[in-house]
């Protein structure tokens, strides 16, 4: 920290020498400002919101916030909120009297609200953390429109094909080798023959099946086409999009009969109770396997979704990036920024990991040497991809992803034969959106 300050003041001095007295004065106010910020933070109260996570979430928040208090002398008042409610009422909460800092999501969700002036600009904080952050994480946290970061990246997780090694062995296949489409179809077919679900999917919440669509589209048409499609530069009625849904339709006969009845937790339970061959999901649920038993956790495995088009291989992955944002309307913005920076700093990460956080941090300081086999495999799955998507509802605008694409995928699963009409509707609704 002190070194950072030195750099700053040295820079301002040089600037001052070059431009003259006025700039020098500005430079000194700048450093006085940051010193002010430090004293302002000390003894102040910072409010923190944990987004879901139950008892573990609270324990992690307490560990990190206590370490922050010890370091800065600022008091932290933390609360945990229901993740979905917080997300749904986000704009209202941010316009009211929000907590100063909170866990949030990168991509459209932070960029949009940052551009609308609801999230604080964290350029200075991300600058402090720069040496520890990979360029991709910084890029992923920065709005392509305003070129400012509104989130400090902390964790991410891969969306991959999850299955249980013991079940794959049971049907006479090699669990290490679910690599191509044929292996995948064979796995589903043989599991189904045993009276189980070949490919489990939930769509009750409207977003779960987006994961399957994302990866199919990226595998068949590539990352660029997918991102273009979500941002209106490619058409939903394009033959390439239809091709993706052709593959999607091939999966439907392998699915559970109650896709519309279950959400992600139902999918998790199907795998936990050994009732499904494979499922496409974010690895965040692995903690629940561990909570059930070590044996269940050791049996869990994840691989990249199999290759379909050799042109693209397995070069793309959904790996939503999470981080810490600061409310622009908070009562203690400097405190919020300091707390956010601490959460994303090596010290904060160490405190979180010690308190039982099993997430993968993007920070280079994050030590993975003590990782178990499953977590190492998660890293391998991430490393296999060179293009990172953030998941459909973070890569596309909010008034399109939830109200239009989600129900379209639900309708498709219900009536796959109607796909042409469904895609025409999606395209028409995209065309009717106001420019942004």
């Amino acid at each position: 920290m002190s070194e950072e300050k030195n750099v700053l003041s040295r820079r301002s001095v040089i600037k001052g020498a070059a431009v003259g007295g006025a700039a020098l004065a500005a430079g000194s106010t700048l450093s006085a400002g940051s010193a002010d910020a430090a004293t302002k933070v000390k003894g102040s109260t910072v409010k923190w919101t944990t987004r879901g996570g139950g008892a573990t979430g609270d324990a992690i928040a307490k560990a990190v916030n206590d370490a922050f208090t010890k370091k800065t002398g600022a008091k932290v008042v933390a609360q945990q909120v229901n993740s979905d409610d917080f997300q749904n009422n986000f704009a209202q909460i941010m316009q009211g009297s929000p907590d100063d800092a909170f866990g949030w999501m990168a991509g459209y969700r932070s960029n949009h609200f940052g551009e609308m002036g609801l999230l604080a600009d964290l350029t200075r904080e991300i600058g402090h953390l720069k040496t520890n952050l990979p360029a991709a994480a910084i890029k992923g946290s920065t709005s392509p429109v305003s070129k400012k970061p509104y989130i400090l990246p902390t964790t991410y997780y891969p969306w991959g094909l999850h299955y249980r090694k013991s079940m794959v062995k049971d049907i006479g296949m090699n669990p290490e080798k679910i690599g191509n489409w044929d292996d995948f179809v064979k796995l589903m077919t043989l599991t189904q023959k045993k009276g189980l679900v070949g490919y489990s999917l939930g769509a009750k919440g409207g977003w779960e099946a987006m994961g399957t669509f994302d990866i199919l589209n990226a595998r068949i048409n590539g990352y660029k086409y997918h991102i273009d499609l979500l941002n209106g530069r490619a058409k939903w009625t394009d033959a390439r999009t239809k091709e993706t849904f052709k593959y999607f339709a091939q999966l439907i006969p392998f699915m559970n009969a109650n896709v519309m009845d279950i959400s992600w937790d139902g999918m998790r339970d199907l795998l936990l109770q050994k009732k499904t061959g494979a499922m496409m999901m974010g690895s965040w649920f692995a903690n629940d396997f561990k909570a059930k038993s070590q044996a269940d956790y050791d049996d869990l495995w994840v691989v990249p979704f199999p290759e379909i088009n050799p042109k693209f291989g397995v070069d793309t992955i959904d790996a939503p990036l999470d981080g810490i944002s600061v409310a622009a309307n908070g009562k203690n913005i400097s405190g919020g920024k300091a707390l956010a920076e601490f959460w994303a700093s090596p010290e904060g990460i160490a405190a979180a990991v010690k308190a039982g956080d099993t997430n993968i941090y993007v920070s280079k300081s994050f030590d993975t040497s003590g990782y178990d086999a499953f977590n190492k495999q998660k890293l391998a799955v991430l490393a296999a991809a060179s293009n990172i998507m953030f998941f459909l509802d973070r890569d596309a605008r909010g008034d399109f992803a939830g109200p239009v694409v989600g129900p379209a995928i639900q309708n498709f699963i219900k009536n796959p034969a109607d796909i042409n009409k469904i895609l025409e509707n999606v395209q028409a609704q995209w065309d009717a959106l106001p420019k942004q």
Partner: protein
Amino acid sequence: MKTAVTIPKNRNRRSLSKTDRLTLTTFIGIPTLLQIILLWVPAVVTIILSFTYWNGIRLKDVQWAGIQNYKNILFNNPLFYQALKNNGIWLLFFIVIATPLGILLAYQIDRGIKGHAFYESIYYLPVVLSLAVIGIIWNFMLQPGGFVQGLMGRDIGNAISIWGNPKINTWVILGIASWRHIGYIMLLYLSGLKSVDPALKEAAAIDGATDWQIFRKIILPTMQPVNIIIVVITLIESLRAFDLVYIIYGSPTIFPLLNLLVFQNFAGQGISMKGAAYAVILLLLCIVPIITYLRISFKEDLK
């Protein structure tokens, strides 16, 4: 002519003392003011917003959209027609089955059939629960891995699809909604029946009228004010249905209802003024039949 006009005016004035006027102003003025501020102003703003594009955050971002939102809903969105259908079935089901059942129960209980107090409390019990709580209860029982599925020996892998099955979910949801609606109507009607003069019924019975004739020719007409309330309540309850389904599904699109679409497009991450347009459509659907019905009923009364 002149005097004829002035006399009632004088009479009016005489009957309103200073305190009277103050009371009237307070009791009519304040509610009217609140009504205008809390209901009519937002309603008018919603109508205006339904002709715009806006993400609900900064006022300066509001853009004029003309009828684009309505065009989009009417021509490009299959969800709207699914919702219209679901609300329509809901309304028909309530009018044809649930509401008449409530009336029938009230009539039977009022006649003092054996154990009527027991039936009365049983049917009334669901009414004290909010539809959100009812949603939680039934979801807990019927969802995959739920209590009833467990009793049938079905786990999450082979659970019967209920909420996601378009062949039955409508009827299950309407059954649950009726579970509460029947009791509500019963109670309303019962309170009306208590005020019907028993002498009327006795007289009709002495004249040789059957039970059905008494109900149709004596009770139904004397109950006209309650009937109006019940018809209006049935209409509103069916068209504004929201909480039960939202609690069960957690998302607005597997069993779409107009109110769910208002919510999805007017709040949260999916906000756009399409939500306002949905709200205006819903408002029209509620107001037009209700006003028409009320006008007809009051005209009959005047005759």
